[in-house]
């Protein structure tokens, strides 16, 4: 695994390189209000929002029927920086174009979005911050 600062620098460097195409938008916070981990957890458990737990597991949570399609999120705070996690949530396609992970804060490149959802993102900016803050509590 790459050293964390190195990964972060790499990401910053890549975003500098790609700035013109805006492929990597600024991965800093989307809002002024710092993310709230408790609200982040509530968002993860909100049945009306497509939950990360459809595909991932977090073993510290008692929730039944967690998903198996993606890797466990246990210890993600030790593997990624907040900026990296935020970028993953915003649009995981920027990290791996073929990923099945939905883009929670992007509307481009989608096909036949339901009329209730057209032009809307899954999360609003504050929800992105809250979920990022919650993930940052998942140290080993």
């Amino acid at each position, binding site marked *: 695994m790459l050293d964390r600062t190195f990964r972060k620098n790499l990401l910053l460097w890549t975003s500098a390189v790609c700035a013109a195409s805006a492929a990597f938008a600024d991965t800093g916070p989307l809002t002024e209000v710092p993310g709230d981990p408790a609200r982040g957890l509530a968002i993860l458990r909100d049945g009306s929002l*497509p939950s990360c*737990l*459809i*595909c991932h597991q977090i073993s510290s949570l008692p929730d*039944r*029927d*967690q*998903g*198996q*399609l993606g890797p466990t999120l246990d210890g993600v705070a030790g593997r990624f920086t907040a900026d990296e996690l935020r970028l993953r949530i915003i649009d995981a396609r920027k990290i791996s174009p073929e990923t*099945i992970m*939905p*883009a929670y804060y992007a509307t481009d*490149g*989608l*096909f*036949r*979005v*339901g*009329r*209730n*959802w057209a032009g*809307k993102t*899954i999360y609003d900016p504050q929800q992105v911050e809250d979920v990022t803050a919650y993930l940052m509590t998942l140290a080993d």
Partner: protein
Amino acid sequence: MMKPLLILVGFLSGAVAAWAGPPDGPPVSGYQMMTPETQQLQDDDFLNPAMFLVDRGITLWGREWTQGGATCQSCHSDIASDMAGVAARYPRIDPVSGQMVSLEGKIISEIAGRLGAPAPDYESEDLLALTALIGFQSRGMPMNVAVTPDSGPWIAKGKEIFETRRGQLNLSCANCHQDHWGEKLRGDTLSQGHINAFPVYRLTWSDFGSRQRMFTWCMESIRSEPYAYGSEEFLAMETYLAVRGAGLPIETPGVRR
């Protein structure tokens, strides 16, 4: 000298075989993903809630659709012999109209066209009941939709729709039912997405539903705009899925979680 040729032949036939179905072996029915309790509900005709549809279908079979007019039975005297194996080969190119038609579509045209009664709606109890009754006459028979030059474009179109990512969640049918079947998606174990048990009773719906209701449900759960009932897209999807699941026994009327 032989070996590379064998490998090449194996590779080519593998590539040809891969187009029709899940790449890893013969198709597996969604029945296999159910708990023993749910399987038993389907297996026991007295417990199976979807048998209600078959019973209702028997009543409709002998009913007059216009006053003093014909019943289905007037022309198709013995349902068991006349309709055996019929559902297993739908959708098909209709020998009379030359058009691709699903079993529901055929029943609608019998009622509206041949009998001159109002066409039943998709998902109406009448249409589900007659579909279940006719499907029941094929129970245990392998799905067996003909691949012909006429049906080829429908199969290809269905496959393309199945593999196209869509909706706010940006997933294709194949992402779930091909690449991740057997894995847990919340309370469900993902199946391969076959259509051999429809119409079914779904416990999570507390209701009956057709193949196309299932497609609609899956599309809505990825926040995608579903196609219309009876649309060319859904007809193509049914045709492709029938071929993709060729050989699976018809389970109608099925029970699912």
